[in-house]
């Protein structure tokens, strides 16, 4: 079963490769709308991104015995995403969007840990996103009289200003919900953490990117960055619109970062981290400059790789140990060393450390912010980046380092090879992305042309150019490796009888002798300091849940109020009908 769907997942990649950018299909659905698929550089980028992610996740699923319908739904989901990114009109886009919504809903429901409340959260937010999208679509249609992207894009300039704003707000809301912007992220964490472990990787790595794709589509293609600039005016070197968007993104990333640190469940942490990373993308996506777009695009790529890697890693560990909390894990480094190295590479990328790809993408975004002189935005991004080290460390410490918190962790075996293969591929990609950041410029330039922005100069595979400085990823990577090896050689030459592999209880513990029962794992002590910092405490103690909970309560109350009318007294119903008639009659006659 797995192999069949592996091949099935491979097919669209080959198909796309075969077409090589010239795909243009249109299929009349009714006399009024046509389904059309057009391959643009932007769409192709996202198409490969999602398809390859699905392929890798399918490889990882080899060791799980999944039912056929799971694979079918997953394939449907991948096709829906393909439809979204290759869509040439809004109807195709929306159909793909909704199929994505429900097929993922059914996939999430296959998890063992899911409950109705989380499912409801997921689907309601997805539908709210979809309905906001369709509202935008029909409003655009009412002016353009077509669902076609190019037609809407052409007629956008002639729409009234308030309609333009309404369209941008509606589309943005829809895609923000998918990407999990703060305030609209209420569904994200529960869903990511309770979905099937491997499917979480798809949710975080690919599905949230559909929101990003939508934002690119709307800002870049439908509205156009030039038009955004003309509509809203400029501030510093960027647009007003971009500035507002950037604050939304930065707030998202800061708040989510702090929330991530205080999580005890591994996947919840990853979910918040995902929100935070998408916050970066949203922060720069509206700049409307070459480097803004490039940064957002590069971070999309890198975040997809990292989150796939991390979620697959965590899924493997959860499958292997049956534990999913930091307070229940720990000390796995000597039991599952390969997994540890993979996670390590992942978090180095996530933290945006130089030799790996994570840095190149962050560098691009920072440069975009400097280019537009959005200094405070840049500070916000750097700040959230600094805070993110804490959760990166929590991730690796809580699972792999420290002490095992239970007996069976001491006998855990290395995770199955099918989990490791995609991880190794992704880690290699991450290393390559850091070593040869210049390769990305070649990918991004056609997209920049599509958005009619200036392109980035290309000077060699290793060099990442930007408006305000460049760096040589290849040099830094090789220098790092060389210095590392040299220092390692040096330190191993000093034979000061390193007493290797000590008993894990032989630690400086104030003269005490810790035993099996001593709580030595600091997995749940993380982030407690944060509550005492006033600013962070203010973030942590607030939650969007109270708002949505009260919304739910209000809805329920309204519902109860209305259902009180339907109390089944036929006599009163009759009187109401008669009164209604009389009222209407008097209104009508007068």
């Amino acid at each position, binding site marked *: 079963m797995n192999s069949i769907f592996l091949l099935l997942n491979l097919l669209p990649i080959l198909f796309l490769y075969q077409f090589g950018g010239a795909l243009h299909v249109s299929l009349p659905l009714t006399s009024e709308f046509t389904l059309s698929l057009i391959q643009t550089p932007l769409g192709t980028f996202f198409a490969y991104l999602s398809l390859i992610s699905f392929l890798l996740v399918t490889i990882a699923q080899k060791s799980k015995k999944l039912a056929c319908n799971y694979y079918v739904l997953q394939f449907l989901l991948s096709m829906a995403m393909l439809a979204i990114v290759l869509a040439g009109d809004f109807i195709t886009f929306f159909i793909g969007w909704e199929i994505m919504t429900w097929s993922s809903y059914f996939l999430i429901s296959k998890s063992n840990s899911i409950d109705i409340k989380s499912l409801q959260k997921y689907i309601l937010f997805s539908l709210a996103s979809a309905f906001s999208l369709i509202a935008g679509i029909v409003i655009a249609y009412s002016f353009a009289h077509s669902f076609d992207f190019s037609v809407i894009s052409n007629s956008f300039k002639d729409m009234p200003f308030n309609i333009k704003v309404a369209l941008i707000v509606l589309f943005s809301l829809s895609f923000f919900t998918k990407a999990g912007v703060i305030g609209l992220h209420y569904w994200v964490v529960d869903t990511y953490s309770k979905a099937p472990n491997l499917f979480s990787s798809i949710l975080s790595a690919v599905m949230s990117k559909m929101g990003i794709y939508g934002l690119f589509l709307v800002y870049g293609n439908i509205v156009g960055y030039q038009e955004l600039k003309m509509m809203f005016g400029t501030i510093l070197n960027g647009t007003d619109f971009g500035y507002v968007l950037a604050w939304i993104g930065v707030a998202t990333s800061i708040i989510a970062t702090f929330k991530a640190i205080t999580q005890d469940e591994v996947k919840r942490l990853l979910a918040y981290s995902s929100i935070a990373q998408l916050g970066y993308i949203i922060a720069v996506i509206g700049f409307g400059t070459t480097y803004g777009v490039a940064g957002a695009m590069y971070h999309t790529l890198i975040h997809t790789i990292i989150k796939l890697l991390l979620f697959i890693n965590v899924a493997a560990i959860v499958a292997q140990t049956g534990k999913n909390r930091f307070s229940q894990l720990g000390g796995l480094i000597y039991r599952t060393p390969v997994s540890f190295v993979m996670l390590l590479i992942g978090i180095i990328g996530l933290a945006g450390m130089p030799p790996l790809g994570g840095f190149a993408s962050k560098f691009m975004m920072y440069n975009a912010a400097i280019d537009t002189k959005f200094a405070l935005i840049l500070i916000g991004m750097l700040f959230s980046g600094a805070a993110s080290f804490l959760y990166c460390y929590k991730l690796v410490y809580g699972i792999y380092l420290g002490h095992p918190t239970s007996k069976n962790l*001491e006998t855990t075996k290395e995770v199955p090879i099918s989990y490791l293969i995609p991880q190794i591929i992704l880690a290699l990609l991450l290393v390559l992305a850091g070593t040869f950041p210049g390769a990305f410029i070649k990918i991004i330039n056609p997209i920049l042309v599509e958005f009619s922005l200036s392109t980035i100069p290309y000077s060699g595979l290793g060099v990442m150019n930007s408006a305000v400085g460049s760096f040589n990823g290849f040099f830094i990577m090789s220098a790092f490796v060389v210095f590392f090896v040299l220092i390692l050689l040096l330190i191993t030459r000093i034979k000061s009888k390193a007493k290797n592999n000590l*008993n894990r209880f*032989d630690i400086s513990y104030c003269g005490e002798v810790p035993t099996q029962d001593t709580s030595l794992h600091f997995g749940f002590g993380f982030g407690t300091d944060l509550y005492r910092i006033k600013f962070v405490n203010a973030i942590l103690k607030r939650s969007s849940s109270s708002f949505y909970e009260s919304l739910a309560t209000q809805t329920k109350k309204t519902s109860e109020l209305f259902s009180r009318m339907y109390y089944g007294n036929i006599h009163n119903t009759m009187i109401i009908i008669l009164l209604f008639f009389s009222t209407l009659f008097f209104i009508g006659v007068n």
Partner: protein
Amino acid sequence: MESGFYGSSLDGNLKCKFEESGLANTHEIMEKAVRWFRSRSIFVVAYGTGCGAIEMPPTFTSRYDAERMGVVGVATPRQADLIILSGYLAYKTLRRVIRTYEQMQKPRYIMTLGSCPINGGMYWDSYNTIKKLDDYLPIDVSVTGCMPRPEAVIDGFVLLQERIRNGEKAGWEKYDENFEFYKENQKRVLGGHIDPSYETDWYNLKSGGKA
């Protein structure tokens, strides 16, 4: 364990190479240099038992300033070269002291303050204090007095530095050589509940977990 005070500070192979190439003299010089550096930098973990604990702060602070001789306090036994036991040791304390001592990296030294660790002092007939610490742990320097003044403590440091410089046989070597002896004595006072010395290689154990 190599003979010689400096232990394996230099690579064994390197030493052989020195000797083969007729540079034994160089080796000698390096040995001396290492000993000198060791004597100039002594990291102390101050185990404040008994009344001597009060003498240590003045020793390290402005008035007597042990730091000028390279003697500086650290928090963990892993980093320390010297442990100062500043008074009588109850059995309970002894257990911790042994643990701490064994966690220190060789070369490691013990310095005691006052008479209690030497002969029990005023606790000579106590039911739960150690009378003669040297039976349980090898003492390098005993500073006598009840209590010794900081000057005396500093004198003890100087003595220790001299002994290190001269390459005299130190307590930790005795401990290694007479390990069984010391363990027997420790067992006698601590009963059967002697702390593990962590000889087992936990991380390579297939079954894992057992110390």
